[in-house]
């Protein structure tokens, strides 16, 4: 694969939704990948096969459908362990998504182990999902929530981060890449610093996992979460990785079927991880689909993907940055293909609505990052975000549409 030239147009044919042509004859230009990605046929096929052939429940029955379902489900877990460099599939917990994964840690670990006076350190560029659970957990335990500030270029204020990393900090909850600024945080270094200060680290890989190679072992990260639907996979599925000793120490968030060992009238014992954290019937089709998604991404190759996305992002920053009245938020040197911007005199919702007329899907709003947007001094932004199937034509279409929007709303 790596020998072939990277061809986003050819790859597009793997994604049925990208073949969509609207009633006005325009093709879909999908630039809302940071919200959710389109799905390749291989993912849809894998889930279809489960439903049409092996739709049994997992872990609990000996009949063929159940055995096949269990095999496919655990095979997907193994694929994901390999994808993130986990030492064992037993460290891979299937969740609803990144949000649930963070909540599992916030409840089962933070609320169990945080003491009054302890602190959780997050950054000012967190998504609400990696912010509110810590705010709530800290509050519940009488602990503090500290915010590491963001510099004007959209990078983390490393100096301030280091100063905030006092011995009270028991956990650093950090986004690997910002869903607004595109900034890629230097996870390995920050994790080293945090560990040196005696803190555990949760890495929110919701934005990075779809684009960057991950190696939880090399990173030595304690917890990591991501979502399937942003990674070419199905909705309703995600992953929590945690070090084995942490999974052992944590309490489960949900209790019920599948996660138990023995149940008596007055007490119960839990199954070993990862089952301990997977109460109830899991999203079997979702896990299988996510396994197919990581296979697909592996087939593309991370190096080629990264090169393509970097070139496209550079092109977009230049092209969009040159438009009159357009301001880009975040100019970090290490970044993903996530470009948030404002256009003078235009409201983000009107921009997005106008782009939609042209078949272009971009996002407008607070991006689930109100604390960051408050610091940026805007209540909402517009955002274009790329994946492997986007190319410079898409960026050109967006630029043209933005020019059109100015005319449309301000012509007199």
């Amino acid at each position, binding site marked *: 694969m790596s020998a072939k030239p990277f061809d986003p147009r050819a790859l597009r044919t793997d994604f049925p939704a990208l073949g969509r042509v609207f009633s006005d004859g325009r093709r879909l230009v999908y630039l809302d990948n940071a919200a959710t990605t389109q799905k390749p046929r291989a993912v849809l096929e894998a889930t279809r096969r489960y439903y049409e052939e092996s739709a049994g429940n997992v872990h609990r029955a000996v009949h063929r459908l159940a055995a096949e379902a269990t095999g496919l489900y655990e095979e997907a877990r193994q694929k994901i362990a390999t994808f993130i460099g986990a030492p064992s599939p037993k460290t891979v917990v299937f969740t609803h998504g990144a949000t649930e994964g963070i909540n599992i840690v916030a409840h089962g670990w933070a609320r169990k182990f945080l003491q009054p006076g302890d602190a959780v350190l997050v950054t000012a560029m967190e998504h609400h999902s990696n912010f509110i659970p810590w705010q709530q957990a800290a509050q519940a335990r009488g602990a503090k929530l500290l915010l590491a500030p963001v510099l004007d270029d959209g990078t983390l204020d490393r100096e301030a981060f280091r100063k905030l990393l006092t011995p009270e900090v028991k956990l650093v909850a950090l986004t690997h890449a910002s869903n607004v600024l595109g900034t890629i945080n230097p996870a390995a270094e920050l994790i080293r610093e945090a560990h040196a200060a005696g803190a555990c680290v949760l890495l929110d890989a919701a934005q990075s996992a779809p684009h960057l190679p991950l190696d939880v072992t090399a990173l030595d990260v304690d917890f990591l979460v991501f979502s399937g639907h942003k990674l070419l996979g199905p909705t309703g599925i995600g992953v929590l990785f945690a070090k084995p000793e942490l999974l052992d120490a944590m309490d489960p968030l949900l209790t019920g079927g599948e996660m138990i060992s023995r149940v008596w009238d007055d007490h119960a014992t839990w199954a070993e991880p990862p089952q301990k954290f997977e109460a109830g019937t899991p999203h079997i089709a979702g896990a299988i689909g996510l396994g197919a998604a990581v296979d697909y991404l592996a087939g593309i190759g991370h190096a080629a993907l990264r090169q393509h996305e970097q070139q496209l992002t550079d092109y977009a920053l230049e092209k969009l940055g040159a438009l009159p009245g357009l301001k880009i938020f975040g100019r970090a040197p290490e970044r993903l293909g996530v470009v948030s911007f404002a256009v003078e005199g235009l*409201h*983000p*919702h*009107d921009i997005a*609505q*106008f782009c*939609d*007329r042209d078949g272009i899907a971009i996002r*407008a*709003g*607070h991006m689930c990052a*109100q604390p960051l*947007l408050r610091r940026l001094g*805007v*209540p*909402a932004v517009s955002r274009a975000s790329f994946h492997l199937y986007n190319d410079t034509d898409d960026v050109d279409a967006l630029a043209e549409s933005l020019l059109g929007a100015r005319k*449309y*709303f*301000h012509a*007199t």
Partner: protein
Amino acid sequence: MQLDDLYQEVILDHYRNPRHSAELAEGEALVDEENPLCGDHLKLDAHVADGKLTDVRIHCQGCAICSASASMMAEAVSDQPLDAIRRKAAAFLALLRGESAPNEEELGDLMALRGVAEFPLRVKCATMPWHALEAALKRLAP
């Protein structure tokens, strides 16, 4: 559904040239509403005299739909009797919810915002000024 059905000429005109628009200093407004989802922010001030709404002033930082809706509302309710305004508000909100036959006579120019009902995610933009007005009326004439 065409974009022009959403952004009708009269809407764009009100957006570009908002009526009854005024800077309202901190604390000066009767009602201060924010829609965190899209970041629309609206302040409204008004008074009541002789059973009519007077001195309507609005400061709206919002999208075209929100701004135009605020401007058109201000025009439609200024110097009107309170009960007529309440009827108009009810008719407008029903229109935006896509309910029954709209009362075109009651609504007049406001009918231009009818297309918003076809864009469910924008409905709040159009209704927010009216919710602010209802809040103001509750205070002015409880």
